C-alpha cells in the first residue's frame, strides 16, 4: 500500500523538438526571467494574482483570472492579452510595455502550442516541499468493512425453511431467529399492491386495477403487477427523483444570488429517461462523469451523453466571487464532494485542507482528483450581471440530434421582455445624457452599466427564439463539462490555502482507496473516464454497495447502512453486512439493472410484511433494525402532492417541455416571477421549477431534499407547519374542490359518494364507522351552514392562487414587488403610497393633471425635462401591467374555477379531511 503514497516526482517528459526548445530559450525564457519572474515565480517568492510562471503547468493552471495561456490560441490567452496591454486592469509588465517584436514572439510561441522545456521536476528543496505520505495510518484499509472486497455470501440456514421466498428473506429471517423476534404476518394483497404502486411509481394505485388484481386467482398476478409498475413512465419519474436528491439537482446556483440555470432541466429529463430505459447503473454513472468522452453511434446519443455530464455542472456556486481561481477551486471542491459522497459514500472533500481524519484519503489524493477536474471545463451557462461575476458558456449540442427544444417562449413573456429591453435601452440613453450634464455626483454610473447589461442579456434571451417562439436549433445547449485543451496537474495547497501552493500532484483517483486498481490516466485527457472506470470497476468496494443500500432504503424505509452517503470510518456499519454484500453482488450479476434488483426486493416476504405494531417485537427492536415489520413512514413530499392531483383527476402525467426557468436572463428574479405567475402547474412534482433560494413551498414543508446537499435519506419531520398546510393551503383546498365536483357529477346518493371519495383518496372502501362519521360530518357542516357559520368564503382557491397585484396575497409576486421597490431605493415609509399609485386602476387626479400639463408643454417622457420621479413611477406601472397581463392570459384563466355552492364546499371539506388523514399521508 505504501508504494502508492510515494508519488512520482517526474512527470511526462517534454519531448520537444530541438527547434522548439531553441525558440523558447531564445525568445521566451529571457523575457520571463527579466520581466516576469520578479512577481510571478517561486524564486522571488511572489505569485501575484495567484500566478506563477515557473513551468508550463503553472502557465496552464493560471492565476486568479484563469489559465494564463490556451496553447494554440494566442488571442484567447490571458498572458498575451496582458502583454498587449489590451485591458487597463491587466497590463503586464505594469511599468513598461514589451517591444512589439517580443510580443509577436510570445504570440508565435502560444500558436506553436507553447512548447516549454521547463518540466517540473518538483520535489523542491526546503520548506516548499511537503511530505505527502506523512502521518497516515494505512491499517484502516485492512480493518474497515467497506474497503474490503465485496463478497458473495451464501444465504444462511434458517429454522423455518418454509418462510423465506428467496435469498433476501433467508438473510433477514436468520437475524430475526437469532434475536428471537418473530416477523409480522404478510400484509394482504391489496395493501401490498398499494404499497408497490407508491414505492415504485410514487403514485397511488388505480382503484379499479386494485379490484382486478385482488380478484385474480393467478399466483403470479402480483409479480405481473410489479412488472407493470416497473414499466410505467411514472416509475422512472419517481426513481429519477431519488437520484436527483443524491445529485443535488436544482435549477439555480443557490448561495447569495441564486442565479438561474435555465438548462438544468435537460439533465433532469436525462436522469428520468435513463431510469425509463433501464440503463445499467454502471453506464449511468460513467455517463454522468465522462459522457462527453465516450464514443457515440449518432448525434442523438452524443447529445445525451453530453447532457449527462450536467451532473457535474448543476451544483451550488457563488457567482459573485471576485476571484476566478477561488471560484474554480470551490466549484471543483463541490464536484468532488458530490461524486464522492453520492457514488462512493466517502467524503473526499474532507481532504482539501488536511489528510482525512478518518478515512484513507491523504490530502495529496484530493489534489490528484482535483487535477482531473482542473483539466475539465465546467460550462454552466449564466450571463454576467449584477450579482454574477462568473458567467459561463454552455455546451452546444449537435444540431442534428433528436432532442427536446425545451419550452416555447410564451408571447406574453416575449412582450414583457421586449418592454424590459426597451426600458433598459431608454434608461441607458437618458442616464448617459444626464451623466454628461449633471456629473457622477447626481447620476450613478453603475446604473448605466446595469441597464446596459440587462439590455444585452434580455436581447440574448430573445435571440434564442424564432418568430414562432421556438428555440432555434443553434441554441440547443446543455450544462455540462468538456476536457480542457491541455490537461494539467494540480498543485498541492498547504492547508488548502490558495496562496500556499506546494509541489504538483499527478492527477489520478484516490490512491489508497484504489489500491492495486489504480488506473493509468491518459496524458491527453482529463482522466474523468479513468475515474469513472475505476468507480464502476470490479475491484471497487464501494459503488455497488452504496447503490444497493440506496435501493434498499427506498423500498424498505430504512437503509442497511444508516449513513447512506458515508460508508467511511465515521459512518455507520451495516446492520446486515452479508445481506448488503449479497445485494451488491446480485446487482452486478444482474448487469447493474436496478429494476431487476427492485423486483427481487419487492417480491421478498420481508418487503411484503404488515407494518403493524407488535408489542413483543417492538420491545426487542423498536427501531425495526431487524425488519420484523414493514417500516412505517410518511410518503415523500412529491407523492403527497402528486397523489392529491391524481385523486382529483387533475394530474398531468406527461412531461412538460423544458422549464419555465429557461427564459431567465441570468438572475433568478425573472425566473421566480415567471414561476409565480405561470399559474397552477399540475405536472408531477419532479418537474416543478426548482430554485435553490425558493424551493417549491409545498414540497419544502414536507422535507423535500435541500438541493444544497447530497441527500441520501431525507428528514421526516412532523411539524405544525405541515398540519397548517394540510388544513389551510390553497393547493390542498383546490384539489379537494376538484375532487368534490367530480364526485357530485358522477355518483348518485350520499352513501355512494362517500364510498367514491374514499376510493379516490385512500384507495379503499370506507369502513362502516367511517361511513357514519363522514355522513355525520356532512350533516354538521350543513347545520353550520344553515346557521351561517360554516364558510368564510366559497370562492375557489384557484382563483385566489392567481396572483393579484395589490390585494392580500402571499404569492411570491408580492415579495418580488417589495424587493424591487426596496432595490429601486423607494424608502419603506413611501412604499405604501407608491404601491397604491402603481396598482390603482386610474392615476390620481393630481398626477394626471401634472401629466396633462407636461403634455401641453410638449414635454414627452423621453424629454430631459420630464420629471425623473414621475418617469420611474410610470415605468413601474407598466412593468406591473405586464405582469398582470401575463397572469390573466387565456391559458391561465382556463384553469381557474368559479365560486362553489355550499354543497360542493361541504364535500370538498370532506375530501380535504381525507387528504389530511394519516391513511393518506402514510405508506400502507
Amino acid at each position, binding site marked *: 500500500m505504501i508504494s502508492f503514497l510515494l508519488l512520482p516526482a517526474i512527470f511526462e517528459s517534454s519531448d520537444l523538438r530541438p527547434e522548439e526548445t531553441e525558440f523558447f530559450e531564445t525568445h521566451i525564457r529571457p523575457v520571463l526571467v527579466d520581466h516576469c519572474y520578479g512577481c510571478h515565480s517561486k524564486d522571488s517568492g511572489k505569485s501575484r494574482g495567484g500566478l506563477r510562471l515557473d513551468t508550463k503547468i503553472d502557465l496552464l493552471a493560471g492565476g486568479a483570472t484563469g489559465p494564463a495561456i490556451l496553447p494554440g490560441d494566442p488571442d484567447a490567452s490571458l498572458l498575451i492579452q496582458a502583454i498587449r496591454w489590451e485591458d487597463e486592469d491587466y497590463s503586464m509588465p505594469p511599468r513598461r510595455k514589451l517591444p512589439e517584436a517580443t510580443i509577436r514572439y510570445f504570440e508565435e510561441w502560444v500558436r506553436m502550442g507553447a512548447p516549454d522545456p521547463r518540466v517540473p521536476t518538483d520535489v523542491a528543496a526546503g520548506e516548499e516541499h511537503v511530505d505527502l505520505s506523512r502521518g497516515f495510518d494505512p491499517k484502516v484499509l485492512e480493518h474497515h468493512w467497506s474497503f474490503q472486497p465485496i463478497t458473495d455470501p451464501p444465504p444462511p440456514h434458517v429454522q423455518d425453511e418454509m418462510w423465506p421466498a428467496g435469498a433476501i428473506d433467508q438473510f433477514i429471517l436468520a437475524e430475526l431467529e437469532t434475536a428471537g423476534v418473530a416477523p409480522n404476518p404478510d400484509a394482504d394483497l391489496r395493501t401490498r399492491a398499494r404499497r408497490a404502486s407508491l414505492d415504485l411509481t410514487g403514485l397511488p394505485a388505480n382503484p379499479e386495477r386494485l379490484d382486478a388484481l385482488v380478484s385474480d386467482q393467478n399466483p403470479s398476478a402480483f409479480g405481473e403487477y410489479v412488472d407493470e409498475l416497473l414499466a410505467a413512465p411514472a416509475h422512472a419519474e419517481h426513481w429519477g427523483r431519488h437520484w436527483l436528491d443524491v445529485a443535488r439537482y436544482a435549477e439555480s446556483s443557490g448561495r447569495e444570488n441564486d442565479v438561474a440555470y435555465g438548462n438544468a432541466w435537460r439533465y433532469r429529463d436525462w436522469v428520468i429517461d435513463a431510469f425509463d430505459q433501464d440503463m445499467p447503473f454502471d453506464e449511468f454513472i460513467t455517463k454522468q462523469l465522462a459522457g462527453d468522452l465516450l464514443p457515440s453511434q449518432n448525434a442523438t446519443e452524443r447529445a445525451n451523453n453530453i447532457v449527462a455530464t450536467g451532473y457535474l455542472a448543476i451544483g451550488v456556486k457563488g457567482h459573485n466571487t471576485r476571484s476566478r481561481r477561488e471560484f474554480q477551486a470551490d466549484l471543483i471542491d463541490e464536484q468532488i464532494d458530490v461524486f464522492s459522497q453520492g457514488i462512493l459514500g466517502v467524503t473526499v472533500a474532507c481532504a482539501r485542507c488536511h489528510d482525512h481524519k478518518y478515512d484513507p484519503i491523504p490530502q495529496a489524493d484530493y489534489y490528484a482528483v482535483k487535477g482531473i477536474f482542473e483539466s475539465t471545463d465546467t460550462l454552466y451557462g449564466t450571463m454576467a450581471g449584477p450579482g454574477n461575476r462568473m458567467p459561463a458558456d454552455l455546451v452546444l449540442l449537435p444540431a442534428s440530434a433528436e432532442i427536446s427544444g425545451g419550452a416555447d417562449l410564451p408571447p406574453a413573456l416575449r412582450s414583457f421582455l421586449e418592454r424590459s429591453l426597451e426600458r433598459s435601452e431608454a434608461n441607458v440613453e437618458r442616464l448617459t445624457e444626464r451623466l454628461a450634464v449633471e456629473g457622477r455626483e447626481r447620476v450613478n454610473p453603475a446604473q448605466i452599466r446595469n441597464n446596459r447589461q440587462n439590455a444585452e442579456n434580455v436581447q440574448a434571451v430573445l435571440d434564442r427564439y424564432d418568430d414562432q417562439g421556438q428555440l432555434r436549433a443553434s441554441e440547443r445547449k446543455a450544462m455540462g463539462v468538456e476536457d480542457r485543451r491541455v490537461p494539467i496537474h494540480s498543485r498541492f495547497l498547504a492547508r488548502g490555502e490558495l496562496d500556499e501552493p506546494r509541489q504538483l500532484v499527478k492527477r489520478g483517483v484516490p490512491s489508497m482507496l484504489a489500491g492495486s486498481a489504480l488506473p493509468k490516466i491518459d496524458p491527453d485527457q482529463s482522466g474523468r473516464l479513468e475515474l469513472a472506470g475505476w468507480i464502476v470497476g470490479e475491484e471497487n468496494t464501494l459503488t455497488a454497495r452504496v447503490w444497493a443500500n440506496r435501493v434498499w432504503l427506498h423500498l424498505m424505509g430504512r437503509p442497511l447502512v444508516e449513513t447512506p452517503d458515508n460508508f467511511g470510518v465515521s459512518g455507520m456499519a451495516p446492520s446486515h453486512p452479508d445481506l448488503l454484500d449479497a445485494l451488491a453482488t446480485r446487482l452486478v450479476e444482474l448487469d447493474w439493472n436496478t429494476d431487476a434488483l427492485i423486483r427481487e426486493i419487492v417480491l421478498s416476504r420481508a418487503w411484503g410484511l404488515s407494518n403493524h405494531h407488535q408489542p413483543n417485537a417492538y420491545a426487542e427492536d423498536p427501531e425495526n433494525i431487524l425488519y420484523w415489520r414493514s417500516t412505517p413512514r410518511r410518503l415523500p413530499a412529491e407523492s403527497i402532492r402528486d397523489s392529491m392531483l391524481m385523486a382529483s383527476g387533475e394530474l398531468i402525467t406527461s412531461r412538460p417541455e423544458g422549464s419555465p426557468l429557461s427564459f431567465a436572463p441570468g438572475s433568478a428574479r425573472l425566473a421566480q416571477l415567471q414561476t409565480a405567475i405561470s399559474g397552477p402547474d399540475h405536472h408531477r412534482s419532479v418537474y416543478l421549477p426548482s430554485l435553490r433560494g425558493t424551493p417549491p413551498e409545498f414540497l419544502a414543508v414536507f422535507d423535500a431534499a435541500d438541493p*444544497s446537499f447530497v441527500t441520501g435519506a431525507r428528514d421526516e419531520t412532523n411539524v405544525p407547519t405541515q398540519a397548517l398546510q394540510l388544513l389551510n393551503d390553497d393547493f390542498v383546498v383546490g384539489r379537494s374542490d376538484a375532487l368534490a365536483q367530480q364526485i357530485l357529477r358522477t355518483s348518485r346518493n350520499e352513501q355512494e359518494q362517500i364510498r367514491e371519495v374514499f376510493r379516490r383518496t385512500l384507495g379503499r372502501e370506507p369502513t362502516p364507522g367511517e361511513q357514519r362519521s363522514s355522513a355525520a360530518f356532512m350533516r354538521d357542516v350543513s347545520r*353550520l351552514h344553515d346557521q351561517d357559520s360554516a364558510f368564510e368564503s366559497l370562492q375557489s382557491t384557484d382563483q385566489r392562487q392567481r396572483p393579484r397585484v395589490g390585494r392580500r396575497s402571499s404569492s411570491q409576486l408580492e415579495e418580488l414587488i417589495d424587493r424591487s421597490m426596496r432595490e429601486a431605493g423607494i424608502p419603506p415609509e413611501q412604499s405604501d403610497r407608491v404601491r397604491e399609485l402603481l396598482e390603482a386602476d386610474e392615476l390620481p387626479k393630481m398626477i394626471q393633471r401634472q401629466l396633462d400639463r407636461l403634455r401641453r408643454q410638449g414635454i414627452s417622457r423621453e424629454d430631459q425635462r420630464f420629471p425623473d420621479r414621475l418617469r420611474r413611477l410610470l415605468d413601474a406601472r407598466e412593468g406591473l401591467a405586464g405582469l398582470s397581463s401575463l397572469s390573466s392570459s387565456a391559458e391561465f384563466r382556463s384553469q381557474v374555477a368559479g365560486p362553489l355552492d355550499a354543497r360542493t364546499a361541504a364535500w370538498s371539506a370532506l375530501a380535504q379531511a381525507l387528504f389530511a388523514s394519516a391513511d393518506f399521508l402514510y405508506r400502507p
Partner: protein
Amino acid sequence: MDLCSNRIESDLCTRRDMLRGLSCGFGMLGFSQLALGQGMLDGVNPLAPRATHHAATAKRVIFLFMEGAPSHVDTFDYKPELNRRDGQQGNRNRRLLGSPFQFAQHGQSGLPVSELFPNVARHADRLCVLNGMHTDIPAHAQAQVQMHTGSTQFVRPSMGSWSLYGLGTENENLPGFVALNPPRNAQNYGSAFLPAHYQGTRMDLGGRRLRQGREVEAMPNLDSSRLTRSAQREQLNLVQSLNQAALRDAGGTHEGIEGMISSYELAFRMQDTLPEVIDVANEPQSIRDLYGLDEDSTSAFGRQCLAARRMAEAGVRFIEVGFGGWDTHRNLREELTNQCTAIDRPIAGLLTDLAQRGLLEDTLVIWGGEFGRTPDAQGTDGRDHNNKGFSMWMAGGGVKGGMAYGATDPLGREAIEGRMHIHDWHATVLHMLGLNHERLTYQHAGRDFRLTDVHGEVAKEILRS
C-alpha cells in the same frame, strides 16, 4: 441509531436530563407527545428545554439586524480625530468625511452616542457597545450569511438554529426561533444540516404592508380562507378520528401518526395564539406610544419590536427582527437620519418595556449590521463598505452596561483593540445562553460541526458574571 446522530455532549444532554427537563420545566401534559419527527433523541422531543453547559445569563435573544450595514462612525463610535481631519486626503483618493452628526456623552457611564439616537441614548447605561467588530468580506450578501452562520462559503446552520438546538423551546404553542423580516436568503435563518425543526420560522410582518391597516399573512396558511373555525374544528375532529383509527389499526403505537395527532392540535391552536401574539391592536395607548406605533416614521419597526417583546415573553428562544435600508453610499445625512429615526424610539421602547417587565435581565438584545462604513467619503455625502472595523451593541442578558468594548483606530477604519470577529461574537452570545461554543456540536458528513468552526473566543470582559 439515529441517522443524524446528535452530538451535544452527554453531560449536557442525557436522556435523563431531558426527561427531568420535561417533568419539571413543563407543566403541560402532552408536550412529550408532541413528537416532532425522527430527529428525536431516544424518543425524546428534540425541542424540549435542555440543561445548559454552564449557568446562563440570558434565556433568549432578540437580534435587531440592520440589513445593509449602518455607519459606525456616525452612530456609536465617536471619532473626534476624523472630524478634525474632515476633508483631508483619505484612502483610494477619497477625502475623509467627519461625522455630520453631533455626539454627546450619556448616562452615568458617559457613553458617547450620536444625536441620531436620542431615545436609545437614554439607555446608555444599559448598552455594551462593541467597537472592535470585524468581519471577512465587505459584500452584503456574504457578510450577512457570515454574521448569521459563521461561514461565507458553505451552507451552515444559523445562530438561532444552534441556540434552539442547544436549549430547546419554552413555549409549546409557538415556534422556538422566529425571524421577522429577515434577509431574503433563507440561509440566514436556516438550519442547514441540523434537523428541520430547528429552522427559523420566517414571518414578514410589521413591514410596509401593514401600515394602512391592511391585513397581512405573517405566516402562510395560518388561517382557513374557506372554513369558519367551528366548521374547521368539525373537519379536524373527523381527521383526528380517522387518525385515531389508523393508530389503532397500526397496533396502537405509531410515532408518525401520534406526532401528527398532536401537531394538528398545536397547529389548530397556533391559528389563534400566533395572531394574538402578532396582533397589537389591544395594547394600551401607553405601549403604543412607547414603541411609536402611531407615528408614520416609527410604526413599522415599532410593531416588530413589540411583536418581538411579546414573543420573548411567550418563551420564544431566538427572535430576529430585520430592518433594511442602511446602505448609505449616497445621501448619508438624509438617509441615515431617516433610518435612525425609524428605529430609535421603537428600540428605546423595547428596552424600557423589557426592563419594566423584568425581562431585560435574561433577554439579550443585540443591535447591529453586517459591517460598518468607511471614514472616507464616497462622493461628498456617502460612505462605502468597511468590514475591518464596525460597531454593534448588546443590552440585557448578563452583559455589562454603560461600556464601550474595543476600539477602532482614530479614524474608525480598522478595529485595533478588543477586536471581535464574528466567530468571537458568536462564541460570546452562546456563552451568555449557557452554551460552550466548543462543545455545542453536531455531526454531519463525517465530522463534528460548530457554529464557530475552529475559531471563536468569548469576550469575558463584557460579561457581568
